């Protein structure tokens, strides 16, 4: 005869199932709640960015009237870097195809273009030693070597703090980006690096990148962080050049 303890009690199995389902479901709800909280933080960050852009535009207006050393784009650079970090998190959570992520990415790309314009203008009008690289990447199917190129450029940004690197998704449907692409007459041959007005196609390894940048600037001078208030702040970091943003 089957011992009492072995006998299956369907009601017990069912009640434990329901209890487990509640615990399991609460895991989903909790992660959803945390994700919502993070999106709210992102909205706040966007608001801050808008304020900074407005402040930047005002700085530009003032720049026309006042000496160049009033320009300080460090806060904006820091904010841009924060957004890029947050964007990576959203991408990890929602996936790169998520409409919410794509919208934020577009917004971020516009911020980058504005920043690039400011730096370019400041370099020209105030003779400031800004050095910029524009980098176009795409996803793995379109550009298999972009991941490595992005990693190398991030390394360069760390090694040469005075270097400003702006990275853009080549396939992002954004008119401002199309305009930037047409300014340099870019072809669909990724990855693309633009230094000054010169366009370089294809993957560039560490030595090639150093040789290439060496044509425009003394690399040793880029290793030192700028100290003058008229130049980008030492705490400022350029937007990362990873291909997943």
């Amino acid at each position: 005869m089957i011992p009492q303890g072995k006998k299956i009690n369907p009601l017990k199995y069912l009640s434990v199932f329901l209890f487990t389902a509640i615990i399991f479901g609460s895991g989903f709800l909790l992660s959803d709640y945390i994700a919502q909280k993070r999106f709210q933080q992102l909205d706040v960050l966007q608001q801050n960015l808008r304020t900074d852009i407005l402040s930047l535009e005002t700085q530009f207006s003032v720049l026309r009237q006042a000496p160049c050393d009033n320009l300080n784009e460090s806060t904006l650079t820091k904010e841009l870097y924060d957004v890029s970090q947050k964007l990576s998190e959203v991408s990890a959570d929602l996936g790169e195809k998520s409409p919410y992520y794509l919208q934020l990415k577009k917004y971020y790309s516009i911020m980058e273009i504005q920043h690039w314009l400011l730096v370019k203008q400041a370099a020209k009008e105030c003779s400031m030693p800004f050095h910029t690289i524009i980098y176009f990447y795409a996803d793995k199917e379109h550009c298999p070597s972009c991941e490595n190129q992005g990693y190398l450029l991030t390394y360069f940004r760390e090694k040469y703090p005075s270097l400003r690197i702006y990275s853009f998704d080549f396939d992002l449907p954004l008119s401002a980006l199309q305009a930037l692409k047409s300014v340099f007459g870019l072809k669909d041959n990724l990855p693309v690096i633009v230094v000054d007005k010169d366009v370089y196609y294809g993957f560039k390894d560490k030595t090639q990148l150093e040789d290439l940048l060496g044509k425009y600037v003394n690399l040793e001078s880029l290793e030192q962080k700028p100290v003058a208030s008229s130049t980008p702040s030492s705490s400022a970091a350029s937007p990362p050049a990873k291909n997943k943003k």
Partner: protein
Amino acid sequence: MAIIEFLVYTAVFLALYYGAFVFLTFFENKNRIYRPSVKRRVFPFLTVILPCFNEEENIDAVLGSLCVSDYPKDKLEIIVVDDGSTDSTLAKARAFQENCPFVRVFHKENGGKYTALNLGIQNARGDFIGCVDADCFVDRFALKNTLAYLDDPEIMASVATIKIMKSKNILEGIQTAEYLGSAFLRKIASFWDSIIVTSGPLSIFRKEVFQKIGLYRQAHLTEDLEMAFRMQFNNMRIAHALEAFVYTKARPTLKSLCRQRLRWQRGFLLNLRDYKELLNFRKHGNLALFLLYCFIGAFMSMAIVSYGLFQLAKALWGGLGHLWLLQGDFSYLFPREFSWPVLHFSTGLILNIFSLALIISFLFVGKKLTFDKIKLKSKAIYYWLFYSYLATFWWVLAFYSIIFKKKLVWG
């Protein structure tokens, strides 16, 4: 990716389901965790069998612990069966015999543990027969407390709680935590009449068990597991005496631990094949589902851990690729400023935290219920970090050994 996510979610759901079932059973039976202490005047005659093979380092300790047991000596006999030892085990056992008249010593040609146990059973005078491993140390009250469960005429065997003597390294600490958790889970399994091993360190049987279902068998080097399976097959009830303690030595090295667990896991799979009838839930109810849970769990853990290791290997490969890209500039691989890693509280992570909390709770409840005083926190952390990988590795070894028909020796 979708398959592995499905597997992870299913595994977590099953783990949570099992945990909920365990705690529900615990609360249902919280007044039956220990046997109520009864002052008894009459004790049954008990034979304790101690099979030995080259145990010269351990035999004094185990015999000493049995000789000072809180059990009337006129109702106790200890049968030492020397299974053809080539060291001084036999001489030491005989020396003990001179001081303890209730110790009997037998010597035979080496034939394996089960043959030594059977010789002891055939010569036992007691109505109750205890089997003890020679590398153990029996708590003073263990015999009495284990035997107390056999007051219930329906109970045919009773197993003691196994603890680790002293842990000296991380690996032994992990085993200490594991044994505490197992003590709690085995007690719960006893309420489902689903104990699947009459453990070697200390189990006491009614003599009629062997008369009805036969003596020990070779059973893929896991005779204690096979005996429990055979008892379950015959619907004989096994109890767990949570308050009876027997101490065993932890395996000090990874190699020796792997050899032991390979034998256990392999024995589980092969004995399950021999007793597949136990998986019939119409005949064996909770036990069938419990065994099925263990079996499916083995496959799931292998799949999930393999995937985790694959991801780790991929990350390491990626790291090497980055180093190549940087042409050997190691400095960039280490962050210049420390920053806390950003945790993505995904559903998978949260559910995994739930199930890990559950596993850790088993350890601490086990500690409390067995009145243990050890410091468990660090051991529980090591257990949490490494145990799932170790257990999965043992399953892989066991399946490999079975599929490729590898010959196994005692380990």
